[in-house]
């Protein structure tokens, strides 16, 4: 278990000082696939490097299974990293790379050899054990980097955007592979990425970060369906933001009045006082309808075909901005719409998530 308490990191000093992390607190559980998700510069890599020991916190503490990690150099932490650049040692063979950590720990030779064999089998690289690292492909290097970091059986495996250099198909494959490895080894994985889709598919829990702060922590479904604020809603998936007025609330359901005058229901947590709010609606949660039936009306400005889906861009009558809808392309899909058509937008029984500004 990693317990990160009120951690702040400031780089530089005086007027150049940059606050990379601002009072970040999070608890990562045993055997969890935990993802730090956010745009570049949000502090996710800094947090990872602090767990690894490459950076020290300016303030706050990091505990690993109750032990304070402060002042411990990276080589005294039972934590290993899969680097974005892989950082394989070019003067060693694949097997020597994988065995390096155990060798530094002073394990006996036959134990190292056995573990190296086991790890290479785990990442399906047994045949290439004697190759030089320059002689294998990017995807294979990735597997070697994984095996190397797993070989010393760390308590925590840190992964710094390890899939970003791979092409689409290989990335998909490695996502499943990583998930399998985590299940088989039972090691806690802390995964850093800026790819929201990657985060949603792989993680047990996600922490969404922006500008040095954690904006929301939750399981993928929670993050997607109940974004805590506008940043999270915008960063994870596509979202339409509508201005609305909250008129009543019972439990988690709020009644909203849209500028069109229609009333819809949406999910809301926290503050339930009536007033101006933002309604976040996912593109796949709304559908096109005849103008008189929609909660909103507008003019179709663009129809974008993308294989599995078609995206409809609607210029709203009631407020500025586009509303984007997504419809799966099926043979029994409804009537075709064309650019310039007058359309209505029908929202679901639960229209979306209410966000406070």
């Amino acid at each position: 278990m990693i317990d990160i308490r009120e951690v702040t990191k400031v780089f530089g000093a005086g007027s150049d000082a940059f606050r990379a992390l601002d009072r970040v607190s999070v608890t990562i559980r045993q055997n969890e696939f935990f993802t730090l998700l956010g745009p570049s510069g949000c502090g996710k890599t800094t947090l990872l490097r602090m767990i690894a020991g490459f950076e020290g916190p300016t303030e706050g503490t990091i505990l690993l299974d109750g032990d304070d990690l402060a002042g411990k150099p990276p080589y005294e932490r039972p934590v290993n990293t899969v680097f974005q650049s892989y950082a394989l040692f070019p003067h060693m063979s694949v097997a020597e790379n994988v065995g390096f950590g155990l060798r530094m720990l002073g394990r006996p030779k036959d134990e190292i050899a056995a573990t190296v064999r086991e790890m290479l089998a785990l990442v399906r690289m047994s045949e290439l054990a004697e190759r030089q690292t320059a002689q294998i492909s990017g995807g294979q290097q990735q597997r070697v980097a994984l095996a190397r970091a797993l070989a010393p059986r760390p308590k925590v495996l840190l992964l710094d955007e390890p899939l970003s250099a791979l092409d689409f198909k290989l990335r998909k494959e490695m996502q499943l592979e990583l998930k399998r490895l985590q299940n088989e080894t039972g090691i806690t994985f802390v995964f850093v990425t800026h790819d929201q889709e990657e985060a949603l598919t792989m993680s047990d829990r996600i922490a969404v970060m922006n500008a040095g702060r954690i904006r929301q922590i939750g399981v993928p479904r929670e993050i997607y369906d109940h974004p805590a604020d506008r940043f999270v809603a915008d960063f994870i998936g596509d979202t339409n933001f509508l201005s609305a007025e909250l008129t009543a609330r019972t439990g988690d359901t709020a009644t909203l009045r849209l500028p069109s005058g229609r009333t819809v229901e949406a999910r809301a947590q926290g503050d339930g006082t009536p007033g101006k709010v933002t309604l976040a609606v996912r593109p796949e949660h709304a559908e096109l309808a005849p103008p008189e039936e929609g909660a909103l009306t507008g003019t179709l400005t663009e129809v974008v075909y993308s294989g599995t889906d078609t995206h409809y861009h609607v210029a709203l009558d009631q407020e500025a901005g586009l509303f984007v809808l997504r419809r799966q392309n099926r043979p029994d899909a409804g009537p075709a719409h064309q650019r310039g058509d007058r359309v209505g937008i029908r929202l679901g029984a639960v229209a979306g998530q209410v966000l406070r500004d």
Partner: protein
Amino acid sequence: MDATTRSRALLLAPALFILTVAASGPLLIVFVYSFLTPGDYGGVVWDFSTQAWFNVIAERDFFTEELGWADAHLAVFWRSIKLSLLTALLSFLVGFPTAYFIATRPRRSRDMWMLLIMIPFWTNLLIRTFAIMELIRNEGTINTVLIAMGLVTAPVQMLYTEFSLLVGMTYVYLPLMILPIYASMERFDFRLVEAGYDLYASRWQVLRRIIFPLVKPGVIAGSILVFVPCLGAYVTPRVLGGGKQIMLGNLIELQFGQLRNWPLGAALSLTLLVIVMVALLIYVRAAGGEEARHG
């Protein structure tokens, strides 16, 4: 021979000409002289003789005609090789951390550091050698300070010792060690250091198992670049050795000068060349082996 090959051969011609005339020519003369008889007032007499080669390592006693080792020559050989190796070692011990320091500076300040390393190198060799002499002689800066501080009562004899030669040659050839190591280190991916720390390697282990193996070609090149000119050093042992601690270069000069034994001088020169060749061969073997392993 087509047009491209011909124009390439033409481009090669000046270099070939210079190499043949300026290197092979004199070398051939030295080779021939080493098999001739010395003239009374220097120069050579055109009588074939292997005496000079014999005298490189052996000598016949003037009175008893007894055969023995040429102890004086062997002592100079030994001193030259020993001091050259020590100079290479000392240059490595000083130059490696220096190159590491420079290679880990921000890119913009690296050139400034390299310039500071190179400036003394571009200064006249004699001036630099006399500067060292001024530092280490009995009335020099170091002894004056030591005496003033009360650390010693009498000046420490440093000048005209092997120590003074070692210090002088290290000072002179240090840039030749730093440059190739720096060139290797600049290409070194320092992210590997973090990977090493992450995998439980201590600072020393990271240095020994990751940094050193990857900059080794630079270290070997630097060692050769320092070792070879040290073997034939002339000015430094002349000034700092004061005729007591002579090296191969001085011994050769003696044969052509005061001792008027040109064939022996020629034979000694060729012996020096052989030693250099052997050193280069070891280098090529070591560097070649490296490359074969890393592809």
